[in-house]
């Protein structure tokens, strides 16, 4: 009986967090929804139609957004995997300091950093370019990457890599055939987190992108600020769905890639795979 109570509590509380999202879905197809109606009075597709109309700016910005976020994800992973490995496996002077330093962007808001670096970026010609936007997006993702990979390397160590080496794999082979697949779960969760952070960046994007780099949040935020709920909700709904798809895609692609890469014999023998 107690178990049932706790299950009920669990479900109710969880729903309390999930159900508010339905508001977004409802509003995105709502024309009018006055007080005290519990459900919209009139439905319409004004918002979604605008986003999905042919040649729409929204879709274009969506493409830019996905492109930038994927680059950010890849680059951030590329720098935080070795960083996390160094912190997770080796002992060396200055480790404690670097650990804290790498987490600093969590504590000091990237907004302040962005404001500070703006003039430097201008001088270097990085503003108004996708490269500049990608570069600035990397910063808030670093702490997550470093944290996750440090933990995972502390856990898995470098035993499998050593094994790979003695079996004749060179450093590249070891990295692609062994390191990456063994940290796959961390890769997915860090990748997702970095993608989310980059994909929802507004302030840093407009600051550094200066309007030449128009990402989806740049289109969405004015609507949210203007209070046009139908438009805001439509954009938000698309935003959420695309993010989810992005995350799923990251996960699926990585998993697929590594189930394939486990060797010809791996693939060859997989069909015999037995469920344990």
């Amino acid at each position: 009986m107690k178990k049932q109570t706790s299950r009920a509590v669990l479900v109710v509380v969880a729903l309390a967090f999930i159900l508010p999202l339905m508001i977004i879905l409802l509003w995105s197809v709502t024309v009018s929804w006055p007080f005290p109606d519990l459900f919209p009075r009139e439905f319409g597709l004004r918002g979604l139609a605008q986003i999905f109309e042919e040649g729409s700016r929204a879709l274009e910005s969506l493409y830019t957004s996905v492109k930038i976020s994927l680059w950010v994800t890849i680059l951030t992973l590329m720098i935080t995997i070795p960083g996390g490995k160094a912190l997770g496996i080796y002992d060396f002077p200055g480790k404690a300091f670097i650990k804290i330093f790498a987490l600093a962007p969590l504590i000091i808001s990237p907004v302040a950093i962005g404001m500070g670096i703006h003039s430097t970026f201008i001088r270097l010609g990085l503003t108004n370019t996708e490269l500049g936007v990608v570069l600035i997006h990397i910063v808030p993702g670093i702490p997550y990457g470093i944290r996750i990979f440090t933990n995972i390397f502390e856990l898995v160590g470098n035993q499998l890599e050593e094994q790979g080496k003695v079996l004749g794999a060179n450093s590249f082979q070891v990295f692609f055939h062994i390191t990456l697949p063994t940290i796959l779960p961390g890769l997915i969760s860090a990748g997702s987190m970095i993608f989310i952070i980059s994909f929802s960046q507004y302030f840093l994007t407009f600051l550094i992108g200066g309007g030449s780099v128009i990402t989806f949040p740049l289109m969405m935020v004015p609507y949210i600020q203007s209070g046009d709920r139908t438009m805001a909700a439509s954009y938000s709904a698309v935003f959420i769905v695309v993010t989810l798809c992005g995350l799923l895609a990251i996960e699926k692609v990585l998993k697929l890639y590594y189930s394939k890469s486990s060797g010809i014999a791996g693939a060859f023998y997989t069909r015999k795979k037995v469920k344990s």
Partner: protein
Amino acid sequence: MFGVKKTQLTPYIYLLPVISILLFVFTLGLVMSIFQSIGVHGDSGFENLTVEYYREVFRSGGFRSGLFFSLRVSLISTGIAVIIGVGLAYLLVMQQREWKILQILLKLPIIVPHLVAAFIIFTLFSQSGILARIGVLLGLMEHPREFPGLIFDRQGVGVILAYVWKGTPFIFLIVYQVLRSIHGEMVEAARNLGAKGKDLFFEIFLPLSIPSVFSTFIILFAFSFGSYEIPFLLGPTSPRALPVLAYVEYIHPDWMNRPYAMAMNMVLAGISVFLVWLYHWVFKKFRRHNWEGRSR
């Protein structure tokens, strides 16, 4: 001999890319912000070095009440998020099933940007929001003004609600992973030694998950303490949260206001760093006392 050098250098080589980016973008950005806040502009050099901006920031009453408001709202919202998040994680870990669906759904608030979260909270809790409408339906009220003013209120209830909504799933996910790894073995051992439901939670789950709860707390706290979107949209007209004050100064079209914005940002960052350090310190103390105390 070469080999020895190589092994000693390896970790630094691995760290080089990430540290370079951090130094180039993060540290440089921070230093530039500090420069701007003490009156050093692009071309003017160090001539008009001044702490006047800081002095003025501290002098203003809005700053002090804003600081207090920000601290209170961040602490309360993060605290609530931690309690609910840990509770949820505990309840889920005690179930036989994993409830993958529930886990996936609970991830959704994490991917919702803060602005959208503010929008959702507004639609739910404003005086004509969904809850008020349910109130009408139940015959508890008739007019919006009878519904308690949760949004724009002085206590920052709306802001807290939004942060709780965003933060709880984050805490939940991280703590759940930890708890699940604890679950099997340690719980069996503790039950076997006579621990029951409540004991399990307070003796095993909580202490073992404390480090990750703690670091998640810091992340969330620092985030809510430093961001402006939610308090700007859901907070009271006065007092204004600190990041909102800084933001308003920053977007002020007159460039002359920028040093104030930077000064406020630096004060914000300084306070964050200090609080994180303080919390860290207290946490360590607490841990030593609590755990070693039991050994005697």
